[in-house]
């Protein structure tokens, strides 16, 4: 006999995602699914359009990670035209991408994760949100710093990308225009302030966490990981894709992202618009894997900025390598925030970023372009095919949240199992919600929101509703 728990997030998430959990008579979780109910059909309607316009249109896939789609798309388009951008253009693209990271990670940490991590579990739901953080003496400073950091990231992003949301300046072969020296100096100072804030934010959050370490040590999920590395270093823009097995620090596989079709296999499920993705290992078995901050930090050997690298070593000393505790997604997101802030200062301190050589003339149309990038939530792939005139004939997109879907389902099951006997409804909902939130799932950003998830849980036994809990 099974009973089913349905968590149906209301308001914004309604119509987009829903959680269902099946439980047997022995109170064991026998199935859990995070349903994605939204589908916009990008792979279809882009057919027949001019490929050079893809970097302008595809940011509209997601308004909060538009930078990632813009850059992934332009990397694919570079290949369509068979060109490598000059070094200064690549530097500018790095800056745009890292500013996007500052924006996305800081919002996630302060608006979504901070209530989970910094407020005590007894905090009433009405205060477990952004407003609660600002009003709480202990957390107000953190919230204000994160807001200032966000402002800095939008300033830098808008300057380099031409517009803050849906940037436009990365073009086939490089960038549309060079960076003026006086702008570089201004942005350099902004980046310095950003690094100062990030250091304070990192210290404040890790100090607050040090009294709450059992949160970080929960929900261990040994899994495969996939992340980009560049000569062994963490890199969000270019490099090889490295896969790690659950039990080894040695890479099990490294491949060029353009070969993704050989290694990554998608499967549909009857209950969700999101396809699950599996890694095809050497013995041809299909393994679910995780992407995003935890995966990237597990996959890299080191980080090429000092503070982030120190934090990486401390993480490994404390939690092992590879580390599997799901809430460490938040911790690794903080490490990446440090990396992004440090790297921005380095890049903007380099005068060669202002070179006028920012665009490689285009050669011919190759017809194949595969762009791979690390988006804040994980590996992002845009795969295009065109005819000889550069008109799109096929589009295949692989987004981060899709790759985490199997792990999200498992994490929900694990969180539910731990809390099932708990008769405090609020604790059960918080626990499941917190598990989902580690991944920062982006369903056209349905859950990338300020404040808490609205949800409804229905528990059925013998088709009778025996427990109905809701939070609107």
């Amino acid at each position: 006999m099974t009973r089913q728990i349905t968590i149906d997030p209301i308001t914004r998430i309604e119509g987009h995602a829903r959680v269902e959990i099946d439980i047997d008579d022995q109170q064991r979780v026998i199935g859990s699914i995070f349903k994605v109910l939204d589908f916009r059909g990008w792979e279809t309607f882009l057919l027949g359009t001019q490929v050079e316009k893809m970097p302008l249109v595809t940011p509209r896939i997601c308004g909060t990670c538009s930078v990632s789609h813009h850059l992934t798309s332009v990397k694919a388009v570079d290949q369509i035209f068979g060109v490598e951008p000059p070094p200064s253009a690549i530097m500018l693209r790095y800056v745009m991408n890292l500013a996007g990271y500052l924006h996305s990670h800081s919002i996630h940490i302060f608006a979504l994760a901070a209530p989970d991590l910094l407020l005590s579990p007894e905090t009433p739901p009405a205060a477990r949100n952004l407003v609660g953080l600002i009003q709480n003496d202990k957390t107000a400073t953190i919230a204000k710093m994160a807001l200032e950091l966000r402002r800095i990231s939008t300033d830098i992003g808008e300057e380099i990308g031409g517009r803050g949301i849906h940037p436009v300046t990365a073009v086939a072969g490089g960038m549309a225009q060079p960076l003026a020296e006086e702008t570089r100096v201004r942005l350099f100072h902004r980046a310095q302030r950003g690094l100062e804030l990030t250091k304070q934010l990192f210290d404040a959050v890790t100090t607050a966490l040090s009294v709450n370490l059992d949160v970080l040590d929960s929900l261990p999920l040994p899994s495969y990981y996939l992340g980009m590395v560049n000569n062994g270093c963490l890199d969000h823009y270019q490099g090889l894709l490295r896969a790690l097995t659950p039990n080894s620090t040695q890479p099990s596989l490294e491949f060029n992202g353009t070969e993704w079709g050989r290694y990554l296999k998608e499967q549909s499920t009857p209950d969700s618009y999101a396809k699950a993705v599996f890694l095809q290992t050497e013995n041809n078995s299909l393994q679910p894997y995780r992407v995003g901050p935890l995966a990237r930090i597990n996959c890299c050997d080191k980080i090429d900025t000092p503070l982030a690298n120190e934090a990486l070593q401390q993480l490994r000393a404390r939690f092992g390598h590879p580390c599997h505790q799901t809430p460490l997604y938040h911790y690794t997101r903080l490490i990446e925030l440090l990396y992004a802030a440090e790297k921005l200062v380095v890049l903007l301190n380099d005068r060669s970023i202002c070179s006028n050589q920012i665009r490689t003339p285009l050669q011919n149309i190759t017809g194949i372009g595969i762009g791979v990038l690390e988006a804040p939530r994980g590996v992002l792939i845009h795969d295009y095919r065109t005819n000889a005139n550069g008109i799109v004939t096929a589009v295949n997109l692989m987004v981060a949240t899709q790759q985490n879907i199997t792990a999200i389902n498992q994490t929900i099951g694990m969180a539910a199992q731990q809390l099932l006997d708990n008769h405090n409804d609020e604790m059960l909902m918080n626990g499941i919600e917190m598990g989902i939130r580690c991944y920062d799932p982006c369903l056209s950003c349905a859950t990338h929101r300020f404040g808490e998830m609205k949800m409804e849980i229905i528990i059925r036994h013998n088709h009778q509703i025996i427990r109905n809990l809701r939070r609107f």
Partner: protein
Amino acid sequence: MTTLKTFSFEWLSGCSGCEVAFADLHENLPTVLAEISLVRFPILMDIKEYPCADVGVITGSIRTEHDREAAHKMRNSCDIIVALGTCPVYGGPHAGYQINPDDMLRHAFYNNPTTITKNAPKNIPELLENRTLDTEIKVDAYLPGCPPHPRMIIEGLRTLIDPNFRPKFGQHNICFSCPRKMEETQISAIRRNFDGIPNPNLCFLSQGYICLGSVTIDRCLAPCPKAGIPCFSCSGPSLPVLLEPQKDMRVLVAERIAQLTNISVTAIIAELIRNEKTYNLFVNGSAMLRTKPTARIAPIIQENR
């Protein structure tokens, strides 16, 4: 003391960029919030119901049954409905030529090279053909833009609060905010975005690039041409193209380029028709443009079905 106008917000299918634009009001946000009374705003408030309001603001387009219901609930609870962003106004890029949901599922689930299963999900809500907001409910005010510039959002909302307020933005096209100089040149062939490196001070049309700024309404302050990218009309058509039956994007752009360069009107019109899917990407879901014969949206939809 006068009572503050009440505002209610709702989001349908979209990318959430308009909501980010609203958050990007930064220090202006508290000022805006002090001038109005919010009765529903999913970013800031935990309200599920649809309380009565003077103004209802809707972003995103209608794609699911949930979106459709939400739109009607907003209409029934608000005196004025504002469509904010290109999606509710014209359908946005995912309006996808009214491609039917079966075709979309086919590309994503059956004919997808990296997908090893061959079945589409079935236990999930059905998709509707994508539609603009005004095909479902009456819309009183339109603010296109992908997303609209924060200044347009503030001034647009302020016109609804204060009858004496006159916004600084009007019915201009993008060229109004673009610093590039229009000059006659000897250019003799159309160039795509990847052909050569454009002169940063000269109008794109003078250089033979198809820039849609002259036929696009300015709701963004022209960031793209300022950053070296020809306008691709994410805010949708200018008012003459939208409202005057004899005017259309193709002829207006072609005549302008032909006057500035040595390229013939016929060549430009042929190029615009050949790639009209690209040039109409943000507005193809618009019922209004589909019924305008000179807009040629209907034939594009036919050809792409």
